């Protein structure tokens, strides 16, 4: 986030104001500098907030906080929240380029949320070879046995959950949540996620790799009015499945 913001600032600063605005128009020159600094600051703010680039600056918005709690009332960190507009002309968030590495026989990160049309790079930073497969309906693919990063990025065009595995190391599991929502993210340690959301009607959905609930049954409608500070609670009805055991220290379970 930050390096790209710096790049934008440098780009704007990189334009020579003397050349762009000849002598005789000093006010315009200073006005340009002020506008450039303001724009750079705004870009940095938007990016550091972790909100996708779909936030329309000109549309009135509200700060929306979604909290996810388990059936016994405890916060659920790491839950995927998607907020999809019900407007007929709503467009999904812009595609991104994401990276899911493989480190110490585990996908890193083990879950990514990406807009439809995004591409994901799957480098392998381990000393052992990996071989990725998915037989999820949203995207069926395989990456042949490899180390390093010899494969082109994989494009994900269908919304849905893509479960990834390694054909050699059974314990490796990764997830890609491909979404056509305008806003998305994951809950923090306190089980909450906050974003500035433009006014309108939305459908809020929650998903977690260890969730036993039917995700469709947990979907809720949400109306956002400008200037609001909305907190919306989603509560799972069934307990989460136990978390995976920490990876074993050696190459166990070849037998």
């Amino acid at each position, binding site marked *: 986030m930050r390096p790209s913001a710096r790049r934008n600032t440098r780009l704007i600063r990189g334009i020579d104001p003397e050349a762009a605005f000849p002598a005789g128009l000093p006010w315009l020159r200073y006005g340009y500098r002020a506008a450039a600094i303001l724009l750079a600051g705004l870009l940095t703010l938007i990016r550091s907030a972790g909100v996708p680039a779909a936030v329309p600056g000109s549309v009135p918005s509200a700060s929306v906080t979604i909290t996810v709690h388990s059936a016994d009332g405890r916060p659920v960190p790491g839950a995927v929240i998607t907020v999809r507009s019900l407007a007929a002309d709503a467009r999904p968030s812009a595609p991104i380029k994401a990276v899911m590495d493989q480190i*110490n026989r585990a996908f890193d990160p083990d879950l990514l949320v990406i807009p439809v049309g995004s591409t994901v790079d799957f480098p392998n930073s381990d000393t*052992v070879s990996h*071989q990725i497969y998915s037989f999820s309906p949203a995207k069926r693919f395989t990456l042949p046995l490899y180390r390093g990063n010899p494969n082109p990025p994989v494009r994900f065009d269908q919304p849905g959950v893509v479960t990834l595995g390694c054909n050699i190391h059974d314990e490796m599991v990764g997830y890609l949540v491909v979404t056509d929502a305008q806003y998305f993210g994951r809950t923090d340690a306190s089980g909450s996620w906050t974003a500035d959301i433009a006014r309108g009607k939305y459908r809020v959905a929650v998903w977690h790799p260890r969730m036993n609930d039917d995700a469709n049954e947990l979907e809720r409608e949400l109306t956002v009015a400008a200037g609001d500070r909305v907190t919306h609670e989603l509560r799972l009805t069934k307990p989460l499945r136990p978390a995976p*055991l920490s990876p074993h220290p*050696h190459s166990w379970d070849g037998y």
Partner: protein
Amino acid sequence: MKPLAALIAVGMGLTCSAHATDWEVDLDMRLLSSDGQRSYLDGGTGALRYGENQSGLQLGRLRLALDQNIGELWSVHLDASSWGEHDKNPIDLTEAYLLFRPYPFDGLRARIKAGAFYAPISLENRGPGWESPYTLTPSALNTWVGEELRTIGLEGQIDWLGTRTGHLFDVGLTGAVYGWNEPAGVALASQGFMLEDRQTTLFGRVNPTPGLNDPREVFHEIDGRAGVYAGIEGRFLDRLVVRALRYDNRSDPTQQDGVTHIFAWLTTFNSAGARLESGNGWTGIAQWLQGETTISPHSHRLGYPFDAKFLLISKQIGRHTFSARYDRFEVLTHFVTPTGDDYAQYGHAWTLAYLFEPNAHWRFALEWLDVSTESALREAILPSEELSRERKIEASFRYALGSAVR
């Protein structure tokens, strides 16, 4: 020039395929104190790997392993070890097989193994080289598996990967056809169960005559009949594994090998077990095996029903693992032994072990083992030694090196 060209070609081939090669070398040295009898492996009747005569510094194991991928879906696995004993070969293979693993399709995954490898019986020998991450010495049950059983043939496995498709469990089915396993059972009948970690190598030997140091090769084809086994495995998330297997080597017990003079032992058994792991480092393993091994020399049927079980509890705290295990085992006879008994061996054992792995390369272990056996066979040789209690305390220092070590 031809050898040079060939060397360059081999070198290029290795370079091209080097990305898919994993290798490992482990050296495991032991320092031990034992009050046990001379080991069965050393020509005696003791149930431990090292008797009192072998206390001191010993080579636990020198292991060389190689995994080589061939193309996308095939791989070769070689595991060779030296156990520091005067076996026929100073270093020999414990496993050597070709593995075919096509990509999973719609939640179903197939695996085919061809060569020599372990049947999916043990729930404790889950580490590289078929070692246990809980103790130095496997249970009596799995000691026997390492001593006399090896699938030399073809094994197919099909798994339904439910946990990859939103379910809570996976189910797998295994079936195998194999040969070269007719002597399996001879060590049970001649010695009974032991608690030791030496695995018989593919060209290695066991002692068919108790008290007589005259080992013979155990992986031999005698009657030309293939053996079979079929098993099922269920896994609940990554917490619980449940296995059951039916084994029948389909030997003709009237046949005898012309070279080793070992009979074809008709060995059948059922095995079952479960391993439960908690999120906070606890592991519990229970395994049971019950069957019979029989020979029919000169139309006299000599049957040895056997039964072994154990319970292991282990707690991992960071890089430290503490384990305790209780074993019970027995080998009965369908006939009256020369000492007038109807059993070959009864026994039970306690094992306590502490393992510390400061990093992927080093492992330090300390194990205390106390095994009590009552052996009619031993009574026939050493009448005063029918009952025997053997104890040992053993320290292990293991260093692992290689691309497969992390």
